[in-house]
């Protein structure tokens, strides 16, 4: 009986049937776009956090502004241009490609290509220089001796 009563209580307690929670934003499509934009934007007062992650009041305000711009049907580019004109490139986590950032964007691939070329050139040169004398038997013997016997040299 007690169980039945408990189950009845559970079933009919209003809170158990209070239903689905509402999303914070009104329009899921707007929120989706906001998130898409906000992960690439910097929270300007935080130390190093995206606008999407930050709980700072200013980030909250900025998110609201971006949300309003989305509702006004501005394109991503228009929104980003607006933010850059107001806050500078600092707000973008993906730095724009311009004269001062060329090295930043090209650098990694220069490193890779340069490294690759250096590797091939070095190997070619090395191949010409090295006679086939990997580790000689003598060296092998000495290494084994050093490691197993612990002979002290000074």
């Amino acid at each position, binding site marked *: 009986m007690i169980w039945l009563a408990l189950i009845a209580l559970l079933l009919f307690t209003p809170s158990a049937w209070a239903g689905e929670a*509402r999303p914070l934003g009104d329009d899921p499509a707007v929120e989706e776009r906001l998130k898409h934009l906000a992960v690439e934007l910097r929270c300007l007062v935080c130390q190093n956090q995206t606008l999407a992650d930050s709980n700072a009041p200013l980030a909250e305000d900025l998110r609201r502004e971006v949300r309003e711009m989305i509702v006004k049907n501005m394109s991503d580019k228009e929104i980003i241009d607006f933010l850059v004109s107001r806050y500078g490139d600092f707000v*973008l986590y993906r730095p724009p490609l311009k004269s001062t950032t060329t090295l*930043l964007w090209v650098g990694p691939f220069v490193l890779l290509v340069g490294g690759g070329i250096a590797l091939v050139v070095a190997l070619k040169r090395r191949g010409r220089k090295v006679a086939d004398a990997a580790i000689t038997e003598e060296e092998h013997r000495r290494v084994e001796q050093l490691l197993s016997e612990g002979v002290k040299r000074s």
Partner: protein
Amino acid sequence: MIPEIGHFALILALCVALVQGILPIYGAAVGNSALMAVAKPAARTQFLLVLTAFGCLAYAFADKDFSVLYVAATSNSQLPLHYRLAAIWGAHEGSLLLWTFILTIWMFAVTLFSTHLPDTMRSRILGVMGLVSVGFLLFMLSVSNPFERLIPAAPEGRDLNPLLQDPGMVIHPPMLYMGYVGFSVAFAFALAALLGGNLDAAWARWSRPWTTVAWCFLTVGIAMGSGWAYYELGWGGWWFWDPVENASFMPWLAGTALVHSLAVTDKRGGFKVWTVLLAIMAFSLSLLGTFLVRSGVLTSVHAFATDPKRGMFILAFLAVVIGGSLLLYAWRAPRVGLGGSFSVLSREGLLLANNVLLVAAMGSVLLGTLYPLFLDALDLGKISVGPPYFDSVFVPLMTPALFLIGVGPLAQWKQAALPDLAKRLRWAFGVSIATAVALPFALGTWTPLLSLGLLLAVWIFSTAVVGVRERVGHVAGDGYVARLAGVPRSYWGMLLAHCGIAVFIVGVTMVKGFETEQDVRMNVGETATIGGYTFRFDGVQDVMGPNYTAARGTFHIIKDGRETAVMYPEKRRYTAQNQVMTEAAIDTGFLRDLYVSLGEPLDDGAWSVRLYHKPFIDWIWGGCLLMALGGVVAVSDRRYRPAWRREPQTVPAGARLASRQIA
């Protein structure tokens, strides 16, 4: 009184370090064995002195001695004892003491496990480590003294940053520093070899286990830092490409390259010059990491110190260490022999290619981390370099390196044949392609990155299987099990570490591809469903912690009509500094994590709540642990054992030889 003892111990340690840095190296140069013999006792004395200093600081924290400035700045009388002790490395001064302490631990370990080394080599190694220690002790004593007094004493401490009041933060910095500082051993070995002009295969074999152990610590340390960020920062990310994270990742990349390059130097005598350079690079990047984090040049979640005097000191120290070792390198390296020949397509060639890729990746991280600083310093504008940049640069650089993981271990030394390799790898390749194409469709979404991630992960797994099968075929023994046991541990270690990378890739790929989140407004009793799990919010209660008050929410998780978990996320207010912290609740699982984080209270008892469903996320850290475990298994290989497990020699070699002849 106790802090003064600590301070004095540091001064004595500096004197000992100077002796240790000068006499043995000089002795090795002129062949004076009495001077060389100073190295070992000096290193051990230094260890005891720094241990004393460390103990004194720990005592001051345990004793709540707020007349010590550092203690007053980073702890509070309400802070529980374990966090007071962890507060030793909670800020700048204490972290440096930890750094130095760990350096002396490594030194002590070198004195224990180097009985088989030639005297000259050992004295040079300890000498170089002594010189590094001089730099750090001088730094502490001149501009960053952890024992500085605060007179009159503060009635109450300012408290440890609440972000750091966490079990992860108790162990993360020591682990990370064990790794950072561990590379000082590889560095000291390399410089000792340069000084002595004897860069041979023996040198490589000696420094290999040290490097691998340091690398393991660093791997675990980084993984723990990432885990800490995941559950403590409260927004569910696990890697932010934050400069402080990059500071630990760069030595890891260089260290990984070093581990591979040492393998070639050990086995084939090649790449000596390059290996030495990598050893210098790995340690220099560790120093650079310390500089970046501790000088205040960055401002990010973890960077606390802001004091230009300190910055200048570290910069000068960095210049001396890096510049000095590179000069030595330029002077001595050209005399080093080249080792055996090999063709471009060979295991050596592939390992070298892996090195180029790892170093290019490291260079890109370095570029992305320092670029905004330089632009700012040159007044060319302020920019932010964040995850979108690193993701778009890092993926193309790492993809070929990950592909090579599958090929390298199967290629022969010296010369490999492409048709042969292709034949041996075709099944693995077919399986990987098929999985990469089919699995995303079976799971319901397809993105290029999802396919790429799965392709690489399956490729690494399947080539590992091919490798084991071939190995077992070559090993003598009856039956499959006996043959498996015949495969050396270093091979298993390598395989395990590579599979760890594959597990890591699965984690990253699945989280990126399939994680879902919801920002909801929840009233008591309301539910929200995410990833097939229904979260029911059962209200918020006030709870008291030792040094905080918290609002604790209760969430019941229901799947398929059954309750699977109850979660308690908190919003804490730390009383000492009146700081609010979000303490997320996480239900961990093998295949998914559920993550709840409380936002703000709204009107009429409702809260804003963030819910995440993160498939496979724990594979990210699991993969890192497997990598580290692989390192441990490799180090336990028989080939290192005679060198490691030897009793110290008491009988002179000649006498022993004689006794053996008699026997």
